[in-house]
């Protein structure tokens, strides 16, 4: 293709900031995000005082993000916040910073540490720029990330419940009920508490958990299970139609938990 190599030393010196900026936007539309990021970076270096440099910096952060290069996107967004903390794009820069953690959650779903960083960055957007149009979508993403953390506690709670370590399971489900009540996992956590307390013979705690579940989540399947358990005191031996072979198929092939 064209012999012109934009990355050669001083190749872009002759162009004005605006021309390079348009070239960057052109690359973005062709979704060559990494080239776009390079052009926006050059504007900042060649014309550090222009209004273009400011806009180029935020576009650079966006381009790196589009290219899934989260490290550089985070660095560029942070640079923007250092130098232009009061500008109107600061909210977007903070939002991009949060997204750089949040978008990685999909790829690395299992890792808890990353979800935590995403939550902190999203909270910064919500608290520092409450009336910006990014606050709303940050709140939505915050709840989703929060739900991921609750899912992790539930996963570990079920691990202990299945292996008969009821006290360890109870402690994990209590964390979900106390710290994560707004998430979608609370009804299940309450039902698991009923199962665990009944298994230990702590009947009145089981009834307390069942009452809370009935009071707040009356219409859920979980309450139906709890009601059945409490009324028959959970005496039927095991699920109907649950053969040993079906259990092996579910757990070994499909990787389910029980």
């Amino acid at each position: 293709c064209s012999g012109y190599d934009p990355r050669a030393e001083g190749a872009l010196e002759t162009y004005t900031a605006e021309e390079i900026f348009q070239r960057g936007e052109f690359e973005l539309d062709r979704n060559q995000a990494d080239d776009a990021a390079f052009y926006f970076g050059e504007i900042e270096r060649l014309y550090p005082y222009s209004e273009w440099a400011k806009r180029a910096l935020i576009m650079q952060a966006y381009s790196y993000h589009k290219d899934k290069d989260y490290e550089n996107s985070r660095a560029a967004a942070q640079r923007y916040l250092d130098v232009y903390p009061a500008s109107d794009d600061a909210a977007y820069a903070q939002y991009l910073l949060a997204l750089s953690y949040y978008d990685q959650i999909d790829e690395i779903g299992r890792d808890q540490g990353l979800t935590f960083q995403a939550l902190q960055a999203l909270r910064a957007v919500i608290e520092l720029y409450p009336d910006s149009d990014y606050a709303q979508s940050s709140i939505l993403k915050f709840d989703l990330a929060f739900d991921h953390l609750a899912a992790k506690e539930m996963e570990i709670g079920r691990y202990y419940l299945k292996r008969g370590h009821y006290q360890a399971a109870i402690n994990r489900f209590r964390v979900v009920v106390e710290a994560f009540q707004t998430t979608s996992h609370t009804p299940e956590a309450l039902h698991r508490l009923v199962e665990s307390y009944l298994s230990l013979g702590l009947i009145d705690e089981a009834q307390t958990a069942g009452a809370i579940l009935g009071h707040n989540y009356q219409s859920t399947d979980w309450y139906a299970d709890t009601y059945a358990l409490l009324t028959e005191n959970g005496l039927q031996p095991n699920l109907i139609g649950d053969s040993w072979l079906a259990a092996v198929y579910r757990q070994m092939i499909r990787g389910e938990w029980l």
Partner: protein
Amino acid sequence: QNFAFNSVSIEGNARIEDETILSYLGVAQGEAVTAAQLNDAGQRIRATGLFENVEIIPQGSQLVIRVTEFPTVFRINFEGNSRLKDDDLFATIRSTERRIYSPTDVEQDVADITAAYAASGRINAVVTPRIIRLPDNRVNLVFEISENGVTEIERIGFAGNRTFSDRRLRNVLTTKQAGALRTFIGRDTYSPERLEFDKQVLTDFYQSRGFPDFIVQDVAVQLTSERDAFVVTYNVEEGQRYSIGGVSVTSELNDVVDLAAFNDVIRTRNGDTYSPVSIENDISRLEDLATRLGMQFVQVEPRIVRNEANQTLDLTFALVRGERIFVERIDIEGNNTTLDRVVRQQFRVVEGDPFNPRAIRQAAERIRSLGFFANAAVNTRQGSAPDQVVVDVDVVEAPTGSLSFGANYNTDDGFGLLASFRQSNFLGRGQSLNLSFSTAESNKYFQLSFAEPYLLGRNLRFGLDTNYVITNNEGADYDTETFTFKPSLGFAVSERGNLQTYVQTRYSDITNAVNGEVAPETFADSEEDGRWTQSVGYTYSFDSRRDGLDEETGYKLRFGQEFGFGDTQFVKTTASAGATTSVLNDALTLTATVEGGYLHYNKGDSSIVDRFFLRGSQMRGFSLYGMGPRYYDDSGATTVNDSLGGNAYAVARLEAEFPLGLPEEYGISGGAFVDYGSLWDPGFDCSGANYYYCDFTPRTIAGVSIFWDTPIGPLRFNFTEALDVQEFDETKGFDVTISTSF
């Protein structure tokens, strides 16, 4: 006095906007401000690090802020660096292109670069930063570096060592003398921290060999006259060598304790040389016994009474009540694809249990031995209450699978296309899946093996191995076709032994053997059509090193039987026993292995495909089917040379592995071995002519090997010499294999 301004004018800022400066100023319009507050405002602006200097000048009702911005960095480069490349240097410095130039950062960068050079042995490298001013308040930043010479260690000496030689102690240290390949090896350069570490290594070495009072008095480091290398001398004081006197257990717990049970768990005996390692092992055995007996929060404290007279130490293990600490949570992080349970099930401790550091260490060991992680750090921190602990498991995942298409050259099977997908952490569930096929022209196969180590969450390993193999053998003039399907269940039967039980169905057929070109019995086998055999079996394996208290000697036992039922009934018994020990202070490792197998038919008889053939790993020095009972007839037009296999085999192998004196970094060591064994009894009467070696005829092979740890794996080059072999055996003098550890 205080001021009130209704307007602010900012001068001198080009890149930084007025609103930015105002947001840091923090003074609103018309607000009454004291001189001190004004000064703080100025301080806040300076703290941003964006400006060279900041002046706050109140002029009546207007506040003037005069700033001069730091220039931005246009380009950074390094001159004169050869040992450390530009990328390493870019990684160490803080200033970056396009950011504001900050003198404090540059100072820190100079210090960081010098430190990086010192760590790589060039302690007198000099770094000077230079600024080239450009128009529009931009600068180029250049770091001029003069590395001037590596300071290596010419000689390491010892003074005061009576029991161990300089050479032996030099082997123990991590810092090495500059050898012939000094430019490549990093560890012969002088670095102070490593010297400290080496002192500790020396102390541990002596203490674990009966010298409790050993100390390194000091380490003299002199520069050679040419000032380009060091001479390091450790002067040490060994002190007396102590051995163990009396050994006893006492209990300071209030509840009743059966001391006898604790006493016979201890391995340290009267007369052993004093060694902290064996005492540490005894402590872990005692604490394990305490937890097994349900005694909670028991810790064992060793109490040593020294009697100078006969240089013995009386050892008392005291059972004391440890303080009540509980495991509040076990948090696992960094597991991107691996499921939480795969790591968590390595813990025998459960959240809410009493905190037992030994159990946590053993769990960490099990997590590392999974082989899924490049790094698995397990450490503890205080939980929400002083007597609660949170266990943090931080893992870094490593690639656990390989997908390869390509060629496979094996000295026995010749050349072939190969595709194989191996994954030891399938879908992050800890399951292992190997799927491979090969079209090597002498050995086509399709092979699948799958394992789930924790079936239904229990410590129960489910395995499924199935393969379909077609061979047209070079070693013999007939083709074989075999298919096996073998599900198995394995579980631990004791702390160090486990049992695998399996069911197997197998199809075997011998085809297109030409009469007159093979042994009559083989031709008879090929006339029959394929045969299905069903069998059940078990294999018991014992490994003395499985519980992690690895003594110097380790021994292994494997015993398996397979029972065929239905129309062919047979009992196939295989057994192997081996022991390994390291002597001469871990320099020489001796390994002895005895292995045997016996196939007995009570209904039907063994065809060639069922009988044993010795593989290279069982007896070295022979090509495939190169030894054992043979039918040889060169009377006709074509000579017939048909290896018949055997219903019984027995092999003994003696091996020694020793360093070749090369520095360990090369990863090369030497070895010597002797194999003695035989394969016999083809299952039919072979007293006629042309039948050879049907009964027990031992062969002896000796050889030397070179072990080499290459990046692609530990390789073993065997050079073999046949000492006592039969005339028609087919030997080979050289072989390359993956060296398996004992």
